[in-house]
């Protein structure tokens, strides 16, 4: 585990998922900045400059795709890697997200927390 804690931005409107995910990442030694909607997420990305963004798609105020579009339009933050964590497997959204540039698209229900955190750790540390 590295000495400088990696900062993860978690954009998730479902509080149970947010709590579970935050706990697992924190236990793994990462710093988690959590947001409950799209607007909050975008603001925190700009202010916190996380190492990785975990982005849900269906969120209040701004959808994940809108956040992603704004992020990619902002030179200051466009290079922060984004991992989509969604429960939607609609092709259209997957296609849009991949077109805008993401490092992955995970269906939350199909991952155990263990697998998820292993993958995230690999991304930020590897």
């Amino acid at each position, binding site marked *: 585990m590295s000495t400088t804690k990696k900062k993860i931005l978690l954009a998730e409107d*479902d509080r*149970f*998922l947010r*709590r*579970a*995910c935050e*706990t*697992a990442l924190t236990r793994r030694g990462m710093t988690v900045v959590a947001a409950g909607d799209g607007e909050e997420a975008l603001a925190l990305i700009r202010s916190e400059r996380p190492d990785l963004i975990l982005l849900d798609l*269906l969120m209040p105020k701004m959808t994940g795709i809108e956040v992603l579009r704004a992020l990619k339009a902002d030179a200051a933050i466009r290079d922060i890697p984004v991992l989509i964590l*969604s*429960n*939607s*497997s*609609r*092709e259209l959204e997957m296609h849009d997200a991949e077109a805008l540039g993401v490092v992955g698209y995970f*269906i*939350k*229900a*199909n991952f*155990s*927390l*263990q697998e998820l955190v292993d993958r995230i750790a690999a991304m930020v540390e590897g």
Partner: protein
Amino acid sequence: MSPRKRLPIRRTQDALEHERIFTETVLDTAGVLVVVVDRQGTIVRFNRECERVTGYRFGDVRGRNLWDCLVPPEQHAAFRAALDDLAEGRGDSPSRIESVILTKDGNRRSIAWSNTTIADEAGAITYVIGCGVDTTERRHAEEALRLSEQRFALAMQAANDGVWDRNLETGEVYYSPRWSDILGYEDGEVDASIATFERLVHPDDRARRTAAVNAYLRGATERYEIELRLRHKDGHYVPVLSRATGARSADGRIVRLIGTHVDLTEQRRAEERMAAQYAATRVLAEATSLKDMVPKFLCAICEAAGWDVGCALAVDPDAERLRGFAVWRSPSVEAGDWETSLRGRSFLPAEGLPGRVWATGQPEWIASADASADFPSAARAAGMQTVCMAPLVLGDRNSAVLEFYSRDIRPRDDAWFEMLATVNVHVEQTLQRKQMEQELDEAERKYREIVEQSLHGMYQTTPEGRIISVNPAFARTLGYDTSAEILNFEGRMADQLYVEPGRREEFRKLIEAKGAILGFEARMRRKDGVVIWVSIDARAVRDRSGAIKYYEGSLVDITDRKEAEQMKSDFVSFATHQLRTPLAGIKWLLELAQAPELPEEIASYIQDARASADRLIRLVNDLLDVSRHESGRLTTNPQPTDLAAVSSQVVGELLLLAREKNQHLELEPAPGLPPVMVDPKLAREVILNLVSNALRYTPEGGAVTIRMHADDGAVEWAVRDTGIGIPASAQNRLFEKFYRADNAFVVHTEGTGLGLYLVRLIVERSGGLVWCESTEGVGSTFRFTLPIADERRP
């Protein structure tokens, strides 16, 4: 020279001598044979003609007995008897006898003898004088004549010609017995005068005959040859061919006509029968309907065979009556009440002549109206002389009676009935054919109606996609006004109607693999550009060799249903998301709750709750997949895919699971396996599903083997297990949605009932087939095929 001036005695001697010389000279000069024998038959005189004819010299035979040298042995007795008769004065004198003599060199000559006797003064016969004429040559000629006469007579008899010989100067005529026989007369019964003959000639033929005779006598024609009708003793006319040659007098005039009559009756009848049969058969062949066939049929037969009126009576089976049905009348017969009444007649079985023919099935022929009381009286009154009736048998029944009337007397002709029997067969065949045609027309009409009125679009296309025929509903569905508008399409239907022409190719592959296809869904572009969803049922129609001739099937607009499905699909997507989110929450929070320090019991509850959540998530995922495959909205990315590589990857993923159950999971190598055309993600899903199932339903320690090989344009992939097997009753339903075999629950209760359904959706969508073979308690083999990727069309 005057011997007479000698002495009287001398003169007497001289006179005798002279007389002897004179007699001998006469005997020797006359061209007749003269032989004189005595009472015993000893030759005393033998003249020169005898010497010439027999070859003997007088000296050779003098003093010899006649039969020692001249009479052949077989005539000895007859000769002696004849000699005795003469000697005793019996019989005529001179007597005449024909006999044969033997010549010196052994030949035989015929001699006609005239014999006389010389008696002495007491009246006793002393000599017999035979005068003979050699008739051998004449006898030969007579024999030849006799033979040639015989042959001539035989030839005449064989040719059945009547011979006549008319003396133009006297008007006398000779008729041979056969000549009379042709006309029904005894030999000699016909008065041998030309005037009588001329009365026998049919009135219509008389002028023609006179002209022909005159032309021949004038030398205007080389031959006399004419067909005539001669009145038979019975009253009917006999057709004859009359031929003659003239015999000329010394001054070159024709004085006699010698000729023959050939009876043409049978020839004419045969011609008429043939013509009638031909005409009838033609009418039958050309008949379009039964109604107009019958009058034409009657007309054809009557005209060909010279009947004046023809009538058909048909059996009315309901009333058990025979009724007039159709009548034909020669234009030369005046229309009258009788002819009209023919149609209106009706007979009970055995009633009247037609009723009798109907009842007995036996034809009737009355040649002369006056000769039979059975002759229909109305026909007699109308001038008819002959009637013939024959039954028409259809099926096993006498179904009709044909009647033919003639104003001429026509002798019975049994061959005519035979001809009608032949025609009867044609009639029956025609009626059967008509009935079949009618039934076919009716069936055709019905089907056409169904096709024309159907709300489903119906069509036939070539495998290449050229439209052969469509019904109005097909045109309407695709926004065209008429079927013709679609038939006028240039080129392939696929390019014009299918929104994704690739779907047409998928359709073609499916139908060729399976022979038929149900519910194939595709998007088509209407004439107005609007895209609609259609569902297509189709089958391949093959020729005898098994080659596909065309596809035929139906098409229905399912756009409404697809929209509903889309809503459902959208709903499923939404619901899926909404379900997955709390499920993921449960799953993750349970995972967090599973701390090492927990009591074992609590830990096991949490473990089970996690498994439950996972199963629920799987079910939701499967439902989503099914929904997406069913809606056809899933974008697939078919590409050449190595099934062995995909299988190897899946085996890697499942190896751990297999080891846990101590199962042997093996992938048999398949070197040189060609790639198949499929979306690799979907291929993985199929293989994962099938192999997981195999492991799941195979007990611990069992074996699961995967093998694959290329076969006939496809790769066949198979996974065999040593599992519990699938009941035969379930094997067919295995690939249905939500279906689970009864015994599945014994082993594994966590299946969703959607896995194999998804497998089928994917395989069929990719142009393959999936099926299973299984024996309960032994194991199962699941197989699927996928088409080999065509390298030329990546």
